[in-house]
C-alpha cells in the first residue's frame, strides 16, 4: 500500500509534468478515470493523507492529499495557461508543458507566450474551510481511522503521527490535532461559558475585519468564532457549476504550497509595484493571495459531495449494506437512547422523545417556499442562570457530527454577525454564524437573554433567526441587494419561558428529579455510557435522516377521516397548522423506529404524544398566567 501511494503520487507527478504533445488527447481523462476508480475503494482513499489531520508543513508539496471541507466562498473564475511552451535558453529547444494542477509556470526556462500552441483555459477557485462546528469526536475518529491503518504512509519522514510530541515550530494556526481540540473542548462554546480571555482573542475574527489594517493576522473567515484548522483555496478544473456554497466536500487534489505564491504579497510594498496594477486593493490581495503556508492551494482532481460528515457511516448513504443490518436493532438502540436522554433531561421522558424526533429531522423537500420536514423544538423550562443548557449542549454535541451553541445574550445578538455579508473591499463573503453546512444543529440558548435594548444589528439578527426557523433560508447581505440561500439547519431553542422566536413545537420541560449538583449528575451519566453504545447512537441519528418515507393510500384516508372527525367535534381543536405538525411528528416517529411508511398505530401514537404535549402547555398556562 505504501507502494500504491507512492505510485499514485508518481503518477500524478507524471501527469503534472507531461508534455501534452506526446500523448493522445484523452490520455488525461483516462488517467483521471482510473484514479477515481481507485479512490472509490475505501481503503485506497484512507492511504491518502488528509489536510484535516496532518499539518500542512508536514506534507510534501505537489503530493496527493485529501481535505474534508465546506465551501465558504467562491471566487471569480480565472484564466490560466493550459498549455504553454518553454524555451531552454542554452539549447533553444522548445518544450510544451501543461499548466494544469499548478500555480506557477515552470521556472528556469524562458516561457514563450507567443506560440500558437498555447491554450488558455479556465478554472474556478473555491475558498474552503473545515466543516464548521464539527464535533471533536468526528475529528478524533476520522483521525484514528487514518492512524489505525497499519500501512499508512508517512508522507514526510520528519512527521510521525504521534500526538504528544509536537515539534516546537508547529504553527498554532495550523493546529488540527484532535488531542488539542479535546483540550479546548471546554472553551469551544465561548459565548456560553464566557471565558473572557478566549473571547478577546478569538471572537474578534468575526468583528474586526476589513477595518483592521494589514498588520492584523490574516482572518481566515471561519463561519463560527473560535474555529481552527486549515483554510484552503481549492482550484476546480471541471464541472464547478455542480458545487454550491455551503456544500461539504471531500476533495482529492494536489497540494501546492509554493513559497513563490507568498512573495506577491510581500513585494507589494516594494517600489517595484506596477503603478498601473491597481485592479486589486491590498485587502483583496490579502484575501485572494494569502501566504501559501497559511492557506495552501489544492488542485482538485476529484471531489464528492458528502451527505453527512459522520465517519462511522459510509460516505454515500445509498450504499446501505451496513445500514440494513443496523436497522434490525434500531428499536433497541432507540430504547437505549430514549433512556439516556430521559436521564439527561432530568427524568422527562416526553421531552426526551421529542428531542429524538428533533435530532433526526431534516428538510427533505421544499414546496415552493415551504420547507418540509423541519422540526424546530423549543425546550422551555430550562433553569435560568445555571450551566444546565451548557451541559445539555455538551451531551448533544457528543451525539451529532456538527453543531454550534449560540448564547443569545444581548451582547451576542447586538454584536455578532449572524448573516454572511459581502465585503466589496476585499471582494469576499464575510462569513456569519448562520453560514452552516446542511444538517448542522444550532443550539440557541435563550436563557442567556436578559432585558435590555436590541440595536438595529440585534433586530436584524433576531429577524434572521426567525427567517431561518420559519423558512429554512438565510438572506445573505450583498449590500445592494440580498440573496436567499436555502439551508437545512436543525434549530433547538432552550429557554425559560416560551421562546420569542417562532418554532414548530414547544415542549415544556418537567423535571422529575432535582439533583443537587447538576454538573456532576450529567457527567456521571455521560461517563457511564459505553463508547460502543455511544457510537451506535451516533450511527442511529445520522442514518435515520437519510431514509425515504411514504404514506399509503389507506392511511391517507384514515388520516383524513380522523382530521374531519376532530374538526367536527370542535373546529378550534385542530387547525391546518396543527395537522402539518402532526404529520411531521408522525413521519419522524415512524422513521425513529426504522419504519419507512406510516401505520395507523404510529399515527395514533403521534396524536397521543401531541395531546400529552399540549396538555402540558395548557397546564402551564393555568399555573403561570402570564405565559401565552
Amino acid at each position, binding site marked *: 500500500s505504501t507502494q500504491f501511494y507512492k505510485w499514485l503520487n508518481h503518477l500524478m507527478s507524471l501527469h503534472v509534468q507531461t508534455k501534452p504533445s506526446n500523448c493522445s488527447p484523452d490520455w488525461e481523462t483516462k488517467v483521471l478515470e482510473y484514479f477515481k476508480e481507485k479512490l472509490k475503494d475505501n481503503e485506497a482513499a484512507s492511504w491518502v493523507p488528509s489536510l484535516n489531520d496532518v499539518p500542512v508543513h508536514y506534507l510534501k508539496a505537489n503530493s496527493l492529499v485529501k481535505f474534508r471541507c465546506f465551501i465558504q466562498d467562491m471566487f471569480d473564475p480565472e484564466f*490560466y*495557461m493550459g498549455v504553454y511552451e518553454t524555451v531552454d535558453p542554452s539549447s533553444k529547444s522548445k518544450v510544451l508543458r501543461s499548466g494544469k494542477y499548478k*500555480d*506557477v509556470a515552470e521556472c528556469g526556462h524562458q516561457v514563450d507566450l507567443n506560440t500558437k500552441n498555447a491554450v488558455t483555459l479556465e478554472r474556478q477557485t473555491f475558498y474552503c474551510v473545515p466543516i464548521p462546528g464539527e464535533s471533536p469526536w468526528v475529528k478524533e475518529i476520522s483521525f484514528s481511522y487514518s492512524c489505525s491503518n497499519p500501512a499508512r504512509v508517512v508522507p514526510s519522514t520528519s512527521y510521525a503521527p504521534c500526538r504528544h510530541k509536537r515539534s516546537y515550530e508547529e504553527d498554532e494556526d495550523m493546529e488540527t490535532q484532535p488531542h488539542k481540540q479535546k483540550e479546548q473542548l471546554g472553551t469551544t462554546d465561548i459565548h456560553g461559558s464566557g471565558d473572557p480571555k478566549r473571547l478577546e482573542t478569538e471572537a474578534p475574527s468575526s468583528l474586526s475585519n476589513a477595518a483592521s489594517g494589514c498588520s492584523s493576522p490574516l482572518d481566515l473567515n471561519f463561519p463560527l468564532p473560535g474555529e481552527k484548522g486549515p483554510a484552503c483555496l481549492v482550484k476546480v478544473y471541471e464541472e464547478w457549476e455542480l458545487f454550491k456554497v455551503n456544500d461539504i466536500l471531500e476533495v482529492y487534489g494536489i497540494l501546492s504550497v509554493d513559497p513563490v505564491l507568498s512573495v506577491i504579497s510581500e*513585494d507589494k510594498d516594494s517600489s517595484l509595484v506596477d503603478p498601473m496594477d491597481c485592479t486589486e486593493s491590498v485587502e483583496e490581495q490579502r484575501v485572494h493571495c494569502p501566504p501559501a503556508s497559511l492557506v495552501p492551494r489544492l488542485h482538485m482532481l476529484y471531489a464528492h459531495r458528502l451527505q453527512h460528515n459522520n465517519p462511522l457511516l459510509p460516505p454515500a448513504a445509498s450504499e446501505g449494506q451496513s445500514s440494513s443490518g443496523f436497522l434490525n436493532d434500531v428499536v433497541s438502540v432507540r430504547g437505549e437512547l430514549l433512556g439516556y436522554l430521559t436521564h439527561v433531561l432530568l427524568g422527562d421522558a416526553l421531552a426526551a422523545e421529542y428531542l429524538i424526533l428533533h435530532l433526526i429531522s431534516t428538510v427533505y423537500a421544499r414546496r*415552493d417556499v415551504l420547507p418540509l420536514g423541519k422540526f424546530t423544538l423549543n425546550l422551555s423550562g430550562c433553569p435560568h442562570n445555571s450551566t444546565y443548557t451548557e451541559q445539555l449542549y455538551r451531551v448533544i454535541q457528543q451525539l451529532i457530527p456538527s453543531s454550534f451553541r449560540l448564547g443569545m445574550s444581548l451582547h451576542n445578538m447586538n454584536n455578532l454577525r449572524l448573516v454572511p455579508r459581502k465585503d466589496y473591499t476585499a471582494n469576499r463573503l464575510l462569513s456569519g454564524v448562520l453560514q452552516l453546512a446542511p444538517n448542522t444543529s444550532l443550539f440557541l440558548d435563550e436563557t442567556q437573554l436578559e432585558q435590555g435594548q436590541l440595536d438595529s444589528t440585534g433586530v436584524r439578527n433576531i429577524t434572521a433567526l426567525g427567517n431561518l426557523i420559519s423558512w429554512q433560508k438565510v438572506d445573505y447581505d450583498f449590500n445592494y441587494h440580498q440573496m436567499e440561500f436555502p439551508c437545512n439547519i436543525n434549530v433547538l431553542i432552550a429557554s425559560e419561558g416560551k421562546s420569542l422566536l417562532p418554532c414548530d413545537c414547544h415542549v415544556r420541560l418537567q423535571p422529575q428529579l432535582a439533583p443537587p449538583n447538576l454538573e456532576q449528575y450529567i457527567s456521571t451519566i455521560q461517563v457511564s455510557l459505553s463508547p460502543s453504545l455511544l457510537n451506535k447512537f451516533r450511527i442511529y441519528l445520522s442514518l435515520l435522516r437519510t431514509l425515504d418515507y411514504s404514506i399509503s393510500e389507506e392511511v391517507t384516508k384514515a388520516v383524513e377521516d380522523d*382530521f374531519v372527525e376532530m374538526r367536527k367535534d370542535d373546529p378550534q381543536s385542530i387547525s391546518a397548522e396543527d395537522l402539518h405538525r402532526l404529520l411531521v411528528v408522525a413521519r419522524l416517529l415512524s422513521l425513529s423506529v426504522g419504519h419507512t411508511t406510516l401505520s395507523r398505530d404510529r399515527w395514533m401514537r403521534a396524536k397521543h404524544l401531541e395531546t400529552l404535549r399540549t396538555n402540558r402547555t395548557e397546564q402551564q398556562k393555568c399555573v403561570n398566567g402570564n405565559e401565552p
Partner: protein
Amino acid sequence: MSSPSATPTKDDILCAAWSEDALTPPSRRRRTDDASTSDLQPMPTSPVTDMRSPAVQDTSLFSSPAPFSHLSDTIDMSSPLTYGTPSSRVEGTPRSGLRGTPVRQRPDLGSVRKARQVDLHSDHANGPEAPASEHSVGQKLVIWGTDVNVGTCKEKFQRFLQRFIDPSSTDDENAGLDLNEPLYMQKLEEINVVGDPVLNVNCEHLQSFDADLYRQLIAYPQEVIPTFDMAVNELFFERFPDSVIEHQIQVRPYNALKTRNMRNLNPEDIDQLITISGMVIRTSQLIPEMQEAFFRCQVCAFSTRVEVDRGRIAEPAVCRNCNTTHSMALIHNRSIFSDKQMIKLQESPEDMPAGQTPHTTVVYAHNDLVDKVQPGDRVNITGIYRAVPIRLNPRQSNVKSVYKTHIDAIHFRKTHEKRLHGLDEEAEEKLFTEERVRTLRELAAKPDVYERLSSALAPSIYEHEDIKKGILLQLFGGTRKDFSQTGRGGFRAEINILLCGDPGTSKSQLLQYVYNLVPRGQYTSGKGSSAVGLTAYVMKDPETRQLVLQTGALVLSDNGICCIDEFDKMSDSTRSVLHEVMEQQTLSIAKAGIICQLNARTSVLAAANPVESQWNPKKTTIENIQLPHTLLSRFDLIFLMLDPQDEAYDRRLAHHLVSLYYQSEEQLEEEFLDMAMLKDYVAYARSYIEPRLSEEASQALIKAYVDMRKIGSGRGMVSAYPRQLESLIRLAEAHAKVRFSDKVETIDVEEAKRLHREALKQSATDPRTGFVDISILTTGMSATARKRKEELAQALKRLIQSKGKVPTMKYQQLFDDLRAQSDVAITKDMFEEALQALTDEDYLTVTGKTVRLL
C-alpha cells in the same frame, strides 16, 4: 530612425502585406500573450537597452524590408494606425475640418494603436488623404492577424451609416429622430449641432445590415473600431466641412450580442467585443495615466515626446540633438495624461444561479467615461475583454500561470435610466426566445388559462381560489395611463390587495411566494419596518463623507410588488406614508436638505391579523383589524382568509396536506417548471400587452357601476364610489392581460365584477344586517351603524328634555335611565358616543361625572 533592421519583428505590431496570398492570417491571435512578453522584459531604463529606444523600434514594424520613407505614404497611410497620432494634433486654433480637428486618444482600445510609432512629423498632412491610393490596391490589404481590409471595412461602414433605416425602432436613443430617414446620418447632424463628438452605434443594427462587418467588429474590435472612427470622420467632415467639434468623432458600439452574462465569459472571448450586464459595486479614484511623456535635454534643451507603449515609457537614453547620454529629463506638466478609472462590476442578482456567489469583473473606464457610473447602478457595458498575465516578481522570469482579466469599457448604458425618468416602459426588457414566446402564446390561447395560472400560483397553499385569482391579477396589473396633460397626473395601474384573517391561515406563505415570484419584490414585516425603512433615508457614506439617499422597500419595489406582512402592527406614522404611495404612486421626501419625489409604482400586497387573536364574525372588517378606513379604501381587493369550518373542505385540506408529505421528487420538479413558466408569462404580459377598453367593455363597466350604486341606494346608503370603478377597470385590464388580449372585453369585465363582488362580500358585509355595505370600507362605519348612532343620540336628547329644566345631571344616572328606557342593550361605548354627538351639537358638555346642559 538610425538602424532599420535591429530588432526582430514583433508579432503584436500591425503590418500590411501586399497580397493576401503572401500572408494568410492565423485564425486566432494571442495579442495578450504578445503584450506580456514585452511586459516581462526589463524596463528600458538604462543605456544598455539602447537598442530598444522607440525610434529604433519604429522602423522594424514593417515586415517589408523596403526603406521606410517609401512605404510611408502608401501602406501606412491606409492603415487605421496612422490616423490619430498625437503628433497630428494641431496646436492652436482656429480649426475645422478633418485635419484641423484634434484627435482624442482612445485608451479604451488598448495598446495596438500605440504599436505604430512612425514619426509622421514630415508627412502627416498626407495621412487622411490616403484612401485615394488605397482604393487601387485596397482589396489586397488586410491587417495582420485578421481578415480586415481597411478600405472595404471603411466603405462598408460608411454605406451602413448612409443607408441604415430602422422604421420599427423603439430604442430610446433614437428619440426625436425621423425613423424613415437614415438613422445615423441624423445622428451626425446632431453631433454637428450639439458638438458632442461621440457616435453610439447599435451593433444589432449593424448585424442586420451587414453580418460580416458585424462579425469583424466583434472579433477584431481593436482594429475595426479605429477604422470606423476614420470612416465616420471622413463622412462627417465631407458633409460639415466647417463644423468645429472638440475632437474627432469616436465610434462607440453597444449592444453586442456576443455575451450577455458575466458567468458565460470564457477564454474565447478574450480580445473580443462583448456586452455584459451587471451592477457596479465599487469605483476607484481617478487615475491619471500617462499617454505621452515629454522629455527635455538638460544640456541643450532639446525636447522630445515619447508615447506610452503597453504601460511603459521608454526613456530616451541619448539626446538626439547633442548626443549627451542620460540628459533627458521628464517634464511632468508638459506630458499628456488621460483619465482612467477602475470599476468593479458584479453579476446582477437575476443572473445568478441558486446557491452560488456572484462573479465580479474589473472594468476600466477611460476619459469621458470616467465617473459615468456610481456604485449601485445597473449597467450594460460594452467593451473589449482582456487578459494579462501576472508577474510573480518583476526581477524573475517566473510567471504565475494565471491571467488577470478586465474589460476596457467602450460604452456604458444604465439599465435603470428609464426608471429614473419615469418613462412608461418596463425597465428591464426581458428577452424571450421565439420558442418561449410560442409556448407562452399557446398557453394564452387555452380557454382555461386563467384557471390554470391561478392554480399554478402557490400550489402548496390550499384552496382560496379567489384570493389566488386576485393575486394573479395583481401580478399582471392594469394598463398605465397618463393624464398629466389634463392635469390629473398618472393613473394608478397597480392593484393593491389586503388579506386579513385568522393567524395561521398561510397568509405569510402566500406573501413569501409572491415575493419569490416577482423579479422586483420586497418583503417586509410591519413589525420590523419603520417609515424610514419603507421610504428612503439619508445616510452619510463612510468613504466619501457624502450624503446619500438610500431607498427603502417601497422605492425598491418600483414596478414590482411590495409584500407587507403584519400590516396591522405597523405604526401610524409608517402607515401614513402608504397613503401617498398607494394612490399617487410617488413618494415625497424632504430630509437633510434633500427634497425629492421618487417613483414608487408598486403594488402592495399586505396581510393583517385581527386585533383580537381570532376573527370576530360579529364585527366589521374595520373593527376587526383596526386600520384607518382611509387606507383601506385604497385597496382594490380586501380578502378574508377564514377557516371555513365545513366538513368537505376539511377533508380536501387534509388530503392536500398529507399528499405534501409523501409526494415524490419528480412531482416537485414538475411544479418548479410551472413556476418558471408563470414567471415568464407574467413578465411577457407585463412588457408586451397593453389592453385598451373596447366599447362594449366600457358600457359593461358603466352598467356595473350603476348597478353597484343602485344596490345601496334602495336602503339609503352608498355602495360604490368612483374608486371602486377604477378598481373594476384595473381588474378588467389585468384579466385581459392574462388572456394576452389587446382589448378589454365583456368577459374581462364580468370576471372583474365577480372578483370584486366576492371580495366585497367577504370584507364589506355589515354583520348586523348581512348586506354588503361599501361604506364600511370607505367611512369606517356601516350606514346602519351610523343611523343607529344618530337615533340613540336623539333618544338621549329626548330623555334629557323630558327631565325638564335641570342644568346638571349625574353621568351614571343618565346612563341607567337611558338603558331602562331603551329596548335594545346599550353599552357604555354607545352611550358615550351618543353623549359625544350631543356635545358636538353644543347641546351639553361632559365634565367628569356630571353632564351639564348648555
